[in-house]
């Protein structure tokens, strides 16, 4: 009897220690996640002098809202707020349009690749996915040269249209791959039943199949939006005088050659991070389920 009591006692202690260890690890993960975020937020609320003193103040001191205010006030040609709002507009247009184009074309292609008996449709899916594994730089250099030389007649250079076309190709493969996984899970009978009732293939697709894949559409749409929102290299290639610059390029250009206005950069950074952070907070679980259930077969 004594012995077994001892064992239970030991087990209790080891369980207690395990609990403590568990909470310590969780604390560590939280610290790793939140410390940089906290640093970014307090930096954005400091006057410049507070970002270059040693030791750094751990609270936003000397405090100011000004870093945020200048993004919206004193709107004149070339001012910070002008460039910020212009970049914001470009980011919204390019990311929004890319998302729509990708969803329409991508899910149409995914539907065909799931349903049609086309020889080599796996190879085609594979090629789309592989096209998204290509490095951005490998596409940007030739695409840039093509737009300024042989295709200069199209007038694509330095337009949002150019950005949308190029961004579309950056995530189309992923959309097709995930959406095909979704279409594969929808039984053929369902679609055939609708078509027996007289609906054409397109009507059946739009009315019956698409609503069933709504989680997939939401997930891929948000992923495309996040990827496009993040794009940096194409505006960089177009140069500082371009008009099709976006938020990432704007934040990069805040970084002066001699002066690093960390507080302004932090404020601009937080403002540009708000839309994607909101997306992840509210729709994160759809993105995750899209990636896991669409991408993973079976």
């Amino acid at each position: 009897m004594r012995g077994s009591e001892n064992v239970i006692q030991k087990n209790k202690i080891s369980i207690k220690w395990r609990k403590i260890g568990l909470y310590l690890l969780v604390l560590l993960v939280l610290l790793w996640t939140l410390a940089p975020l906290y640093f970014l937020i307090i930096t954005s609320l400091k006057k410049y002098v507070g970002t270059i003193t040693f030791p750094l103040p751990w609270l936003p001191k000397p405090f100011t809202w000004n870093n945020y205010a200048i993004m919206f006030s004193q709107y004149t040609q070339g001012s910070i707020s002008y460039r910020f709002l212009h970049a914001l507009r470009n980011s919204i247009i390019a990311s929004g349009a890319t998302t729509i184009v990708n969803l329409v074309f991508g899910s149409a292609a995914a539907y065909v690749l799931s349903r049609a008996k086309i020889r080599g449709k796996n190879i085609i899916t594979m090629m789309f996915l592989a096209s998204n594994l290509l490095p951005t730089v490998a596409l940007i250099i030739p695409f840039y040269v093509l737009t300024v030389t042989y295709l200069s007649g199209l007038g694509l250079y330095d337009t949002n249209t150019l950005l949308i076309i190029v961004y579309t190709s950056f995530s189309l493969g992923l959309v097709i791959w995930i959406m095909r996984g979704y279409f594969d899970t929808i039984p053929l009978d369902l679609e055939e039943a609708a078509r027996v009732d007289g609906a054409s293939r397109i009507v059946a697709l739009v009315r019956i199949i698409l609503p069933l894949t709504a989680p997939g559409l939401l997930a891929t749409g948000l992923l495309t939006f996040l990827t496009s929102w993040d794009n940096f290299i194409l505006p960089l290639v177009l140069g500082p005088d371009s008009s099709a610059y976006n938020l990432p390029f704007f934040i990069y250009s805040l970084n002066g050659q001699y002066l690093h206005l960390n507080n302004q950069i932090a404020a601009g950074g937080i403002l540009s991070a708000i839309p994607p952070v909101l997306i992840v907070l509210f729709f994160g679980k759809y993105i995750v389920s899209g990636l896991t259930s669409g991408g993973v077969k079976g």
Partner: protein
Amino acid sequence: MSMMPATDPSFRTQQRHRIFRALSGEYFWFYLLLLPSILILIGVVIIPILFAFRMSLGNTSIVVIGGKGSISDTWVGLQNYIQLFQNSLFWQSFRETIYYWVVSIIVELVVGIGIAVLLNKEFFGRRVVRVIVFIPWAIPTVVNAMLWGMIFDGDNYGALNDLLLRFHLISTPIVWLNPNPLFAHIPWLSNALSWLGSNQAINALIVGDEWKTLPIVAILVLAGLQTIPSEYYEAAKVEGASGWKQFRNITLPLVSPILTVVLILRTMQLLRAFTLIFTLEQFGLPLMSINAYQQAFQFGSFGTGSAISFLIALLAIIISIVYIKRLYREEL
């Protein structure tokens, strides 16, 4: 496609039937729906890649005025590639690229799976913690780069230096983003690590990159863990399997499809890695993508730039074939 001679009459009718079927009825719709994506694939991916290959075979330079440019390329054959392969700096940047990719992936899998297992345990506030941990993934790459630039700043007001100085762990600030060799006091180790592409700056960049990307790995693996029925573990416990054995024989095999997805996603991003490195290092740490950009847009040597970018593309294609074969193992 069968290789029948075109003179065979049955083949010709078969061919005609196929074309007829392709253009009529539902197959017409199929092809119409597929067409835009195929056009994008050809126009924005395949043609540019082929054009890059053509440019890489010449001494290509372009002059751009107001968005219109003229191109001049003298054919030099494989000269650009030969020069690259003879250049030790190119091989160094090749090894650094591979190092960046491999080390990031390993860290991500080990730590990412670790965090996922942790978040799958029961503890107070689990739901909130899961949401918080996901946030860094949403921060735009440029913002992440700027943030880690402030943390790794070489002056004493860089956040990391500030902490270390404050607690007297170092006496002078460290310039974290300098590509210094590691373990400089042990020459053979230092040389070996430098050869492998490891240095202070690249490891700092990996840390900054992981802050943004670990969350998606951890959250995806966590989603996989949640689909594993707890009966499996209970059965294993009855059989007396240790924690590691359970992890090895139950957890890993069951989350492995998700790991493939993670690998594909992350390789996609790591081979593209440009923003973080360029923002923090400019041309100071010339991984292959930076090198290609510099050759083309700073030196105006589009031939060499294209050659490097074509080699990156080749590398990406080889890696993606390996992954995708794994993904479609049963079907191809």
